[in-house]
């Protein structure tokens, strides 16, 4: 291992520190950028075409800028934004790996991107084939029977899975009330349970950071619709008793739901279907490297075991003779998306799977896990792990020692990392770990980058001893300094037109 760090994004010189006015502030009356086709369509006045009662008195004010102004504005905004392409993004649970440009190029191909979603199946055979190919590969990866590709993100997949759970039980005349969730779960899980019409029962983790099997047995009963589990869990630990957990839930007639947020850790090594899961959602924007877009779009396909296939949302693309057709399962829960899901995200994920193949995907998981474990051991002296043993693709570390000794908290470490040219890890999650810093390096970061991150954290720890106040004020070299979140919430200014206090 080389000692010379590489892979640091060097935040100060690389990010724009000058404030950028809003689009509305650079607007100049009379200026334009748009150019439209010459159509020769008769230009009748709008008042002849539309009953005047429906027309606005004045056009909606947008902005009036030249193309050149717009390019400068948006480019400068982009310079005030950190991204995976710029540097490491070790956000735990978010799997911010490098997104291959090849997959972007696939999605940009007009032969895919210019297709209208309501065009008949006979004219969109390529798209249906993409959907069938992707569904079959996702099922091979997860060990499930069939999947819906409609859910637009992970949380949409969760809710779809819960509605599948509900439809399954109702089809058996079985009324169930509760869904069990570990205390380490993502917040989307309980929020989705409520929207699925169920109550949440929380099951505690044991001192090894895993689901407490005895406590689980204690809350199981005939009114339990199912359990939602992330495996590896949000501490980055594999639920070693997963077979027993699944059996216990199945024993009371419940279903076992796999939250695929952490699927990246186990690709090609262990499949949810083989662990006893009945329903699996995947986050294609995590595991299958489709870029996150600053907060979306994602895609959250849901795969199910054989006994749930009839309930899947429809229509689904299926093989029909030598071609492809739309079909809606017999007892479908219905549509969960306005069209067919986030199709271009699906195409990117399929391209990613094509490139990697079976062996490549397995290596993805293995390298993600070796990176996380290397980082866990490398940082053990400063930020000990909440559970110091072999982790999966992410490790949950604690800043408790820094807090006790110097009053420097996880948030301070995170903000100081921004000054060091890295994105921060996930902080204060999972909720059950004091001063949590969750690092997920992903497989696409090199050992040099990991070493650079470790050295940055060492510098921060040294600074904690000598200049804790400075750390409370970090970051200073970023486009803006620490942001007043309380002020934003106290007086909401959500638009440029809102009244200022």
């Amino acid at each position, binding site marked *: 291992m080389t000692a010379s760090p590489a892979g640091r994004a060097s935040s100060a010189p690389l990010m724009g520190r000058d404030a*950028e006015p809003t689009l509305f502030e650079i607007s100049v009356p009379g200026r*334009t950028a748009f150019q*439209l086709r010459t*159509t020769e369509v008769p*230009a009748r006045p*709008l008042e002849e075409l*539309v009953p005047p009662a*429906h027309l606005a008195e004045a056009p*909606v004010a947008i*902005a*009036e800028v030249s193309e050149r102004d*717009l390019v400068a504005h*948006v480019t400068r*905004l*982009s310079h005030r934004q950190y*991204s995976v392409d*710029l540097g490491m993004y070790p956000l735990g649970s*978010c799997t911010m790996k490098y997104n*291959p440009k090849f997959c972007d190029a696939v999605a940009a*191909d*007009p*032969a895919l991107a210019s297709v*209208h979603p309501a*065009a*008949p199946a006979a004219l969109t055979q*390529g798209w249906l084939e993409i959907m069938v190919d992707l569904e079959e590969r996702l099922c091979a990866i997860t*060990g499930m029977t069939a999947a819906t590709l409609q859910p637009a993100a992970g949380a949409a997949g969760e809710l779809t899975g819960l509605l599948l759970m509900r439809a399954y039980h109702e089809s058996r005349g079985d009324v169930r009330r509760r869904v069990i969730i570990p205390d380490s779960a993502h*917040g*989307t899980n*309980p*929020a989705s349970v*409520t929207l699925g019409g169920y109550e949440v029962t929380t099951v505690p983790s044991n001192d090894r950071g895993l689901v407490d099997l005895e406590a689980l047995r204690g809350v199981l009963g005939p009114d339990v619709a199912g359990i939602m589990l992330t495996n590896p869990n949000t501490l980055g630990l594999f639920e*070693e008793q997963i077979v027993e957990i699944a059996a216990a839930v199945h024993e009371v007639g419940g279903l076992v739901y796999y939250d695929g947020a952490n699927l990246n850790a186990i690709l*090609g*090594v262990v499949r949810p279907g083989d662990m006893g899961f009945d329903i699996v959602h995947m986050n294609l924007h995590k595991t299958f490297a489709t870029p996150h877009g600053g*907060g979306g779009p*994602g895609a959250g396909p849901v795969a199910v075991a054989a006994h749930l296939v009839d309930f899947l949302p429809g229509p689904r693309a299926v093989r029909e003779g030598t071609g492809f057709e739309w079909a809606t399962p017999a007892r479908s*829960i219905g*549509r969960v998306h306005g*069209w067919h899901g*986030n*199709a271009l995200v699906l195409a990117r994920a399929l*391209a990613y*799977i*094509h490139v*990697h*193949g*079976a062996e490549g*995907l397995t290596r993805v998981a293995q390298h993600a896990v*070796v990176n996380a*474990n290397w980082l866990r051991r490398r940082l053990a002296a400063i930020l000990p792990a909440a559970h110091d043993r072999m982790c999966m693709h992410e490790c949950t570390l604690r800043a408790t020692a820094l807090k006790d000794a110097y009053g420097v908290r996880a948030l301070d470490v995170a903000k100081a990392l921004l000054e060091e040219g890295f994105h921060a890890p996930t902080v204060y999650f999972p909720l059950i770990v004091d001063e949590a810093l969750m690092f997920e390096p992903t497989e696409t*970061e090199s*050992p040099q980058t990991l070493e650079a991150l470790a050295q940055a954290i060492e510098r921060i720890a040294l600074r904690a001893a000598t200049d804790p106040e400075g750390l409370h004020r970090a970051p200073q070299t970023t486009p*803006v*300094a620490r942001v007043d*979140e309380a002020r934003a919430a106290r007086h*909401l200014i*959500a*638009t440029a*037109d809102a009244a200022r206090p």
Partner: protein
Amino acid sequence: MADYLPHTPEEVAAMLAFVGVDSLEGLYAHVPSAVRLAGGLDLPAGMTEPDAAAVVAGYGARNAARASELVCFAGAGAYDHEVPPVVRALAGRSEFVTAYTPYQPEVAQGVLQAIFEYQTLVARLAGLPIANASLYDGATALVEALNMAHGATGRSRMLVSSGVHPHWRAVARTFAAGTGHEVVEVPLVDGRTDWSGVEPAGVAAVVVAYPNYLGVLEDPAEAKALAGSAGGLLVVAGDPVAAGVLRSAGSWGADVFVGEGQPFGTALSFGGPYLGLFACAEAQVRRLPGRIVGETLDTEGRRAYVTTLRAREQDIRREKATSNVCTNQTLMAVTAAVQLGWLGTRGLREVATRCAQGAHYLFDELTRIDGVAPAVTAPFFREFALRLRRPAREVVARLAEEGILAGVALDALCAPGDRSIDAPEGVLLVAVTERRTRAEIDRYVRVMRGVLQ
């Protein structure tokens, strides 16, 4: 096989030694062997990018409906608008494309300010003071609006006009299975919602589409009166391009505006990723679903942006959150802000006007053909429904052979028993955008005449 892993074999060996295991497989020693996959994934071998490119190109080649082959007159919520190179270049910048959710505002001012500008534009188009940072699509935005109405009123009865897009209503029905909402679909008569038969008492939301999915300009005042009389919220589902020239949802008294934002810079994309527009009245802000960006200051007193009112959201509020949405469609929201910036005040008005001009010109020409009649008599904006002598699906297939995507056959859009129109198998929904030339429209009319003779 190809991958994107930087590690050399020597580096992997050194890392494994540091971690204390002797192989990559050894990292999984604590995974029960009973569930470990023997023999690897049942997938084809990987390939290099140039090799994969040929495979992927094959899919595209099997899409006859691509724009280079078919001139698009289909709409139904997804429209073929001009997206200029400058918008593609800016919205495609990797700083936006490869960023995560802006959880660290100090290094996310780019995305946060772009969302703030987007929120401002959506709020102006809606004529309402607050807009969120985006939802998945128009259909799921409607579902969130119903959930908001439930939260605001404590009631579960939703009156949804059948003029709302059939797929949106289908999605609302799906999610009502979980929330327990009663979704009452109110029929259309001659293209307009017939509210006369509905009982307003106990209503949480009245939902009207403006224009509705048949293109018709209904009078939202009727829906407002109904909602007002019962103390429910008025939800207006709008076409955001039409909103550039029509009276705003807010001016009709809407509490919530939802819409499909695809027309603002996003390609047809076979239906996604699109963009759920959501705006609401001040009174509902604490019930807003998903993220919202607010303006504030940093510790140096400089203007800064941050996601705010976070106590509504799932990661903090968990089972009591206003919504489960986490990942949304931020990149499409940024794209919409850039596209609207490019269009500007005059451009949006011009696009909306040209859509209406093209649609009315095509409508006038087509309805002169023997075998084509208006399906409804109500006034329309940029899309219209025609009743044809032959099944609409057949007509679409025939015109496709001539290089024209004639529209959307309504029986392909509507579930059986839909109460928006009778005998939908004979109805074709046709849309015209600012990209359609007179020559394309005239050719459509000629081919249609030939097909129906």
